[in-house]
């Protein structure tokens, strides 16, 4: 009989081995110097073209007055921010390591990151494929620099729990049955890989428990709008949500 290895262990050690290293010497697609210069000069007037391009980010990021964390961190004051440095956002290890290694979001670094997020910081959790056109990136970054500097979030709150119907802090205390969670998770892992591997859909492995539960309530209550998630969460009971949180919380993050 073939021997059975403990699969999870194998998968995880492979993941760990598969380089969480940060690409250091990545050379960004050389942004046209003139464009960058223009970018600085026109920083007074938000460019509607930039706002249009930001639609690609909007499902995951907020920017501007009262911007909150969504799937991704809020982007207020992002220019100059040390990567992965907001206290109350759960970044990937790769993103935090990049910041600890000295990466800050200069316009130039943003250029490189937004061109190919996964190449610039391998293992980071942003499931965005990249913006190919350097010109579009310049327009977007200029707009972002403008808007985010204009309205730095005073006191970034990740979620306003009181605004979520049916949600109370007490729910966070409900004990979940991880075994039931594992069964229910069968439905989730068709999209969210249990290894934490990210491709087009965010990873939910290793999310903080309260963030995980809150986000499910946000789908349930139309605060977040993704249809496939609303459908999956729509008729989950509180016990089921707790069970899922217990199961996903028991998996090792990437």
């Amino acid at each position, binding site marked *: 009989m073939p021997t059975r*290895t403990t699969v999870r262990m194998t998968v995880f050690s492979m993941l760990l081995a598969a380089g969480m290293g940060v690409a250091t010497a990545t050379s960004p697609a050389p942004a046209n110097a003139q464009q960058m210069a223009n970018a600085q000069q026109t920083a007074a007037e938000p460019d509607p073209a930039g706002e249009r391009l930001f639609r690609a980010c909007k499902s995951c990021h907020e920017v501007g007055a009262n911007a909150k964390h969504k799937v991704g961190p809020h982007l207020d004051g992002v220019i100059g921010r040390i990567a992965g440095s907001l206290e109350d956002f759960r970044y990937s290890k790769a993103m935090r390591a990049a910041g600890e290694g000295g990466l800050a979001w200069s316009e130039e670094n943003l250029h490189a990151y937004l061109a190919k997020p996964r190449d610039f910081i391998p293992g980071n959790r942003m499931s965005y494929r990249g913006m190919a056109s350097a010109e579009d990136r310049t327009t977007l970054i200029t707009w972002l620099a403008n808007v985010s500097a204009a309205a730095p979030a005073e006191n970034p709150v990740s979620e306003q729990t009181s605004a979520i119907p049916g949600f109370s802090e007490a729910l966070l205390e409900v004990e979940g049955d991880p075994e039931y969670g594992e069964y229910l998770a069968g439905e989730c892992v068709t999209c969210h890989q249990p290894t934490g591997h990210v491709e087009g859909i965010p990873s939910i492995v290793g999310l903080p428990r309260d963030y995980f539960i809150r986000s499910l309530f946000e789908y349930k209550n139309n605060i977040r709008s993704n249809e496939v998630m609303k459908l999956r969460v729509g008729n989950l009971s509180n016990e089921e949500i707790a069970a899922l949180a217990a199961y996903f919380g028991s998996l090792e993050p990437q």
Partner: protein
Amino acid sequence: MTRVNRRQFSTLLGAGAASLSLPYYARAQAKPRVVVIGGGAGGATAARYIAKDSEGAIDVTLIDDSETFTTCFFSNLYLGGFRDFGSITHGYDKLQSDYGITKVTGMATGVDRGAKTVTMADGATIPYDRLVVSPGIDLIWDSIEGYSEEAAQIAPHAWKAGPQTQLLKEKLDAVSNGQQIVMVAPPNPYRCPPGPYERISMMAHVLKSKGVDAKIIVLDPKEKFSKQGLFQEGWEKHYPGMVEWYGPDVHGGIKSVDVAAGTVETDLDTFKGDLLNIIPAQKAGMIAAAAGLTDDSGFCPIDATSMRSTVDENIFVIGDASIAGAMPKSGFSANSQAKVAAMNIRGELISSKVFPAKYSNTCWSLIETDDGVKVGAQYAPSEGKIASTSSFISQTGEDAAVRKATYEESIGWYAGITADMFG
């Protein structure tokens, strides 16, 4: 021709023979055996979940007639040039090395339900305690007069992924100015309700991006089809004047096809195509009927709470071959049903917990670059059938960012489901 690795094979035979000759108490201690026929969306998932969650307590054998599996899902994206063939083809190596599943490559030709054994084309028999049947579909060749397995070499169906898909791609890439493609769409029920229409979109994409001025005629035996509003809006928008869809009220009935002449005859007219894509009617994979699991519909009735065959309590039928109530025949559905069957089988064989069945499905379709649409639903057993409990569908007139996000989601799903099937 069955190709079984020699060592695996003798182990198999050895195990079977030994358990028959051992005294009762020893037999009772032998590991329970699950055999899975079909290594696709349903079968590979079932095998993996049973092996993974029983952590070695159940012996799992997976039978498929091929060494690799090419997914039908995303095969349309391959036709459209969005994927290469290698990226939709997967091996069974991890299921063997990481999960201890025994893979047997060969055709299962019969099931002896009394003796609880599966018979292979080369005469080998494989014993089981529980059998999972997930053979997908077989085509009903004579549902269109003039069509046959040989004719499919000229006018591909490409409704089972593999060489047929490559043949269709070759022919699609050869279509030139002034030519015409004729597709005959399948009657209900068939695998992947939006599939033919996503395919039309991908064909149109290839023609458009090469600047080839050609038409696509669709002869449909159905009066309406899945995501019709979304597809027709998309064709209008991206491929104006290129696609002509005719339902039965226009063509009056599809009578026959002549692949040598490249014609499809309908009540209305004879349509000439430089490329014919004929998708005939479908039934459960042949082994389902051979095992006596099908009813008059050609598919297999099941118990909605477990996916157990209503004909034999030791057999579970999942995926396209099953009659799964409101669930469409899709890879997502097959994967979802596999988990319910796997849980019930583990519960019976090793007394692990069994929870109430829940099922789900989402089907994404790509209409043009970054223009993806989706339809999905949740299901639960109700009054003996699998019934829909909630659903959604993409809307017409959605903005481009939503459509692009939908497409990206489908890429995430493809990576997720194939990892869920093959480890």
